[in-house]
């Protein structure tokens, strides 16, 4: 039962914040500073998420095969490789490093 309470609270809370962002009045978004801010926020959040999913193990910072995979993705991006190739390079290099013993 407790688990259902947790699920219900999480579902409501997460839906509410998603909706809140969409419902902000358009007039507010016309202002240049707000526009600039809203454009930069996803950059900050995506960058932080990328870093955490690569270098974090729970709450500890680690350097493992995932870093090699992400580096491969970065190289592929610099070479202007297509999107799927970028992801495939990251996955392949990570799996390869782990297979070798990483």
């Amino acid at each position, binding site marked *: 039962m407790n688990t259902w309470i947790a699920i219900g609270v999480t579902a409501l809370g997460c839906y509410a914040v998603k909706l*809140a962002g969409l419902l902000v009045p358009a007039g507010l978004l016309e202002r240049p500073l707000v526009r600039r801010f809203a454009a930069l*926020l996803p950059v900050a959040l995506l960058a932080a998420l990328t870093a955490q999913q690569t270098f*974090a193990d729970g709450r500890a910072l680690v350097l493992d095969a995932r870093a090699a995979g992400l580096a491969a993705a970065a190289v592929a*991006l610099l070479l202007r490789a297509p999107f799927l190739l970028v992801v495939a390079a990251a*996955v392949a290099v990570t799996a390869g490093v782990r297979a070798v013993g990483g």
Partner: protein
Amino acid sequence: MWQTCALSLLVFTGASQFALVGALAAGGNPLTAAAGAFFLGVRNAFYGLRLSQSLALPRAVRPFAAHWVIDETTAVSLAQRGRRAARIGFTVTGLTLYLLWNLTTLLGALGAEALGDTDAWGLDVAGPAVFLALLAPMLKTAVERAVAGLAVLLGLGLLPFLPAGVPVLAAALAAPAVLYVEGRRAGGREAARRGGSGQEAKR
């Protein structure tokens, strides 16, 4: 098993789901667990803020679209040029992810042992690689690069000290911080142009 599926159907924001399950499995209080999951979900509000500009959805559609406001749909939509492409990106990403996410949740709940160790296949790095690929075109100027760099430092640096989900929110502060510095610089240049050197001296 029903609980796992309900999570994917109703919450549909991966990081929050993992946080909730992790906290409950560790014997956490359900409300504390929900609070942690909620913090991880708060970033979706910021995505919505940005998306409502580029998608310009009719008011009646917004409550339905809101459920799909997540990392992936935002990243794909914002990578498109033009409103039509952004809307298509949002809908296609939302629909495919929602179907696959719930289908794979069901399969996982039914018995994932057969799959073996997914980490050995390197699949866990696909997420960050996708984020990186979508982030790269956004880093057009020094301002965006500064925001991304500062966000990475904040997100990783605060990780060991703050509860799960909070470091990412703290990393969002990189955006106002860089905007503030940029604003002061622009202000300083303006003052210098007007012949006042006082603003420059202060910095």
